[in-house]
């Protein structure tokens, strides 16, 4: 009450203002501090987890690498159980990267097409179910892709492989396999492409749908056809989004384990190594999963962990690259968070009389 503090306004309006002090303190809510602390802690935890993944893998890989008698990066031998242990990742690296890149090359154009279909071509009523249908592809577990891939899809792909092998066999990449394998890298790549399709589609779809109406209508108002509108407005806006989606897809393909494990036939130890995608092979992930039973000595475990570490680093680089591309490209790459200044008014009507 003001009577106690003596600071009542000298000229109180006649209709009696309430002159009691308002409760305006204290500053800082316990709830706010607690909640902000928890949120921040979760952020820190995420950073810690990634750091720990790197640190632990490195810590367990180093002793094994120290005992390794082979060149870890350039050798194609993998005999961590031998005495002294010999292992190198060259073959694994090649198969992993080539299969994923082919998968991406197949998946991205189709994914962009599907994304455009759902956002700008499908009839309104169909768009949502169609999008859901493609999302369903992501819901299929990878082990089922593997089974389907090797049992049903690989036989269909055989003529294609034979045809490509005959036509382009003079290129080492397409050399016909000496052994008549069904489980070849190319088959794995196509299945991987199907697996990453929904990932790339979903992100592209989202970014395409966000193309500002003003851009789209601007293009249409110039008399563009639908395709021209897409080329002028939608694709430029979504480009970096598609790139980062592709990178995400690439990352998924690089690390995919079980489907590849099931599809790829492991080359016989005596077979000469081949760079052909029409032969079997092993990726980092399939190698590790295939040999989980071998994790019995520190050296052996360490060798697989070292391989895992390389996979981690590769995916790390791919993802960082994706992020860099997004960060560098123009507007629309990442939906920029509008930094709002109070003075900036989105509307201009009435600004001048």
């Amino acid at each position, binding site marked *: 009450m*003001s009577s106690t503090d003596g*600071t*009542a*306004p000298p000229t109180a*309006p006649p*209709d009696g*203002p*309430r*002159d009691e*002090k*308002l*409760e*305006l*303190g*204290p*500053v*800082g*809510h316990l709830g706010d501090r607690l909640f902000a602390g928890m949120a921040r802690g979760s952020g820190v935890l995420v950073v810690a987890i990634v750091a720990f993944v790197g640190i632990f893998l490195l810590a367990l890989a180093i002793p094994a690498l120290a005992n390794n008698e082979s060149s870890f990066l350039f050798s194609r031998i993998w005999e961590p159980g031998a005495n002294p242990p010999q292992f190198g990742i060259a073959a694994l690296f090649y198969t992993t990267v080539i299969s994923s890149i082919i998968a991406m090359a197949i998946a991205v154009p189709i994914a962009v097409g599907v994304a455009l279909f759902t956002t700008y071509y499908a009839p309104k009523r169909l768009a949502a179910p169609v999008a859901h249908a493609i999302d369903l592809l992501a819901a299929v577990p990878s082990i089922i892709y593997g089974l389907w891939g090797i049992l049903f899809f690989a036989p269909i792909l055989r003529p294609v492989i034979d045809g490509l092998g005959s036509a382009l066999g003079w290129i080492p990449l397409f050399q016909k396999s000496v052994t008549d394998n069904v489980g070849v890298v190319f088959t794995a790549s196509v299945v991987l492409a199907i697996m990453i399709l929904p990932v790339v589609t979903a992100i592209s779809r989202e970014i395409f749908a966000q193309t500002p109406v003003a851009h789209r209508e601007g293009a249409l108002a110039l008399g563009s056809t639908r395709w021209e509108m897409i080329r002028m407005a939608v694709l430029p806006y979504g480009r970096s989004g598609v790139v980062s989606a592709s990178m995400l897809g690439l990352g998924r393909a690089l690390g995919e384990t079980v489907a590849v494990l099931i599809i790829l036939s492991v080359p016989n130890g005596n077979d000469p190594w081949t760079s052909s995608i029409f032969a079997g092979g092993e990726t980092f992930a399939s190698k590790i999963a295939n040999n989980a039973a071998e994790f019995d000595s520190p050296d052996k475990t360490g060798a697989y962990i070292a391989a895992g570490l390389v996979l981690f680093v590769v995916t790390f680089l791919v993802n960082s690259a994706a992020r860099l591309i997004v960060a560098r490209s123009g507007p629309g790459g990442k939906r920029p968070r509008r930094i*709002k*200044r*109070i*003075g900036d*008014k989105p*509307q*201009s*009507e*009435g*600004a*001048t*009389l």
Partner: protein
Amino acid sequence: MAKRIEVSGLNVYYGDFKAVEDVSMTIEPRSVTAFIGPSGCGKSTYLRTLNRMHEVIPGARVEGKVMLDQQDLYASGVDPVAVRRVVGMVFQRPNPFPTMSIFDNVASGLKLNGVKDRKKLTEVVERSLHGANLWNEVKDRLDKPGAGLSGGQQQRLCIARAIAVEPEVILMDEPCSALDPISTLAIEDLIEKLKDRFTVVIVTHNMQQAARVSDQTAFFNLAATGKPGRLIEMGPTKQIFSNPNEKATEDYITGRFG
């Protein structure tokens, strides 16, 4: 309810940029005060400093004093959250909470501050909707989402939401700029009614609106682009519009403004 606001020597900064310079004014209780001026002159920025809403923007800070009947809103120990319970705000665009029904939107201020008493809430909601001239239009669909109303109705819903917490002051930041003329008229009628109970401050770009609804008018202007906005003059609306003291005010009001 309704308190007097006395501002003295107020500067507003965004980081290093001085957006508003040296504003002093008195805003009378139970009246409508309009802020007019060209775009970017800092009137909205200044309005926000009256309930410390500018603090939501990173880097924004204030020098000077804002007194609400002898209480300094910027004194140490004053909680901006508490300030906003006393000085409510209505925004340019209607922004009802989309997850809430009409009822919950109006009750949200109380509910989120811990009021659970159903009877009291019902009472406040009805009173506030009456106060916002919206009751008759929505009384049969209180449990429907607020987002389903028309733009003008949504804005009145937001006003009902603001008055439900029984503030002393209501700040309105161009409340009609996103509305059609008929809805605008409804809001203007409502402002007329609100001043019986509250101190109302309204930023508007529409000078007829300022002339229609306000008792006092403050004209803000920039000396030049990149310079801070300033209060040029303030006085009874009639006088500002018919016989302003400053040339700049006259130019702006008569439309001769560069």
